[in-house]
């Protein structure tokens, strides 16, 4: 995090269609409007950060992008392909293209780290067992956990679990990663190991949409911050513009309070 230039993400190249396009998505859950006409786009290699108060619809938005939660209105396009037109059968293929990292890891408790990474290769991509194992080891090695391959999730620390879950998602070679507060369930001393893996992904050109409250990290890494509140995108723009001292933005007000609370 000392050399910001390393983490710079390219600006959208003119003319190219976005990898991800969220178009006028809305969702009501339990009678409450959670997402209200949300639209955003992500181009290849971009990392955008989604911030905002809890209950603002950030997690629901990620689930809607993945169609784990079906939006009531609007649609999601991955490389121009409409999720809504995929139907129940093909939606699995759609989801396979999008990696998801959860706040509480959601590793499969009954499988070792290696099997966690290999299982989707085998059951979804039909990769033979040996190849899937080898591929899993490669991915675990990238997140620095090759030596923990035979441990079960309950034997790993939170930071290690999250790194395994990143390896698991990356093994599927997704076009896009969604990260839902990947560090907020971690003890402070474990956060940096996960953030550095995420920084590696960004450096490698992975397209990512990340919900986080790690503002310091985010501002170095991202080209654009999206601020959500009450189910709406309130502001979006480069961190320099939204977060600069004196910027009269809703985002900078929110983040200054975050800094007070966490001391970061």
């Amino acid at each position, binding site marked *: 995090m000392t050399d910001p230039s390393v983490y710079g993400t390219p600006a959208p190249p003119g003319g190219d269609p976005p990898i991800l396009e969220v178009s006028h998505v809305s969702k009501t859950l339990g009678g409450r409007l959670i997402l209200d006409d949300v639209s955003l786009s992500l181009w290849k290699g971009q990392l955008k950060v989604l911030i905002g108060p809890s209950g603002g619809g950030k997690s629901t938005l990620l689930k809607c992008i993945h169609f784990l939660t079906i939006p009531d209105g609007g649609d999601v396009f991955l490389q121009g392909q409409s999720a809504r037109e995929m139907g129940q059968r093909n939606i699995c293929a759609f989801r396979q293209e999008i990696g*998801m990292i959860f706040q509480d890891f959601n590793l499969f408790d009954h499988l070792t780290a290696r099997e966690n990474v290999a*299982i989707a290769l085998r059951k*979804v991509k039909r990769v033979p067992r040996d190849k899937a194992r080898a591929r899993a080891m490669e991915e675990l090695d990238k997140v620095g956990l090759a030596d923990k391959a035979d441990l079960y999730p309950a034997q790993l620390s939170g930071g290690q679990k999250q790194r395994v879950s990143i390896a698991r998602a990356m093994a599927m070679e997704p076009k896009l990663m969604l990260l839902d507060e990947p560090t907020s369930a971690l003890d402070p001393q474990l956060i940096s190991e996960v953030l550095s893996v995420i920084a590696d992904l960004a450096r490698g050109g992975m397209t990512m949409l990340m919900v986080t409250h790690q503002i310091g990290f985010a501002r170095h890494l991202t080209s654009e911050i999206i601020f959500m509140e009450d189910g709406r995108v309130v502001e979006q723009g480069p961190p320099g513009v939204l977060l600069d001292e004196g910027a009269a933005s809703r985002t900078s007000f929110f983040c200054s309070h975050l800094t007070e609370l966490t001391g970061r």
Partner: protein
Amino acid sequence: MPDSSLIEAAIYIVKGTGLTVALIVGAMLLGLVVGLPMAAVQVYGPRWGRFLVSVYVWFFRGIPILVLLFIFYFGLRIIVENLLASALGHRVTIPPFAATVTTLGLTSAAYQSQFFKGAILSLHPGQYQAALSLGFSRTAALTGVILPQALRVAIPAWANEYSILLKDSALAYVLGTLEIMARIKHMVATTHQHVPFYILAGAIYYALTFLGLRALGRLERRTRIPGLGQDADLEAKPND
């Protein structure tokens, strides 16, 4: 008609014990095969599916097993036999054993569906979501991720079901299934030694319960997920 000699009597009872074991193994497997999908429907299925399963469960939970045995043997068995006869063109007799396994198995399915449902619900919902997010179909998520964990959780309840089913199986003698109880009653009738033979029956059931529970306990330990004990479980979720 068994000889009154001791060895022949012992063989006669041991055969009945074997039949009882076959009866409960068959019933538990039938209960598993029918109960597990019902549990999945109750957790993940559509509203009408959940309704059908709950009707099934209430039917079997609400009627004594003895009544069910009679209903199946004198009612359903005849209907199935007639259907088979018209389909195959010749008379088919369903033995009491098959009728008993079916009755006990379908009853057990009602109970098994309930504790499998509980086992599935005890898992973190993120397990299912994570599987879907990796591109698993709903069926693949269920068979590859949810059931391997839910089955482990369900082993103690399964052990409980085993001991209940074992004792329920004693009722099978009313249909003429030659299991332990039927043979003990026969011995009693021929020897007029009531108490010793009923104590013997009790001892056999006790031994079967003991051995079965031990085997399932061993299965539980062998399939235990490393690190996931009670203490480790608390450690693993400090942030929940």
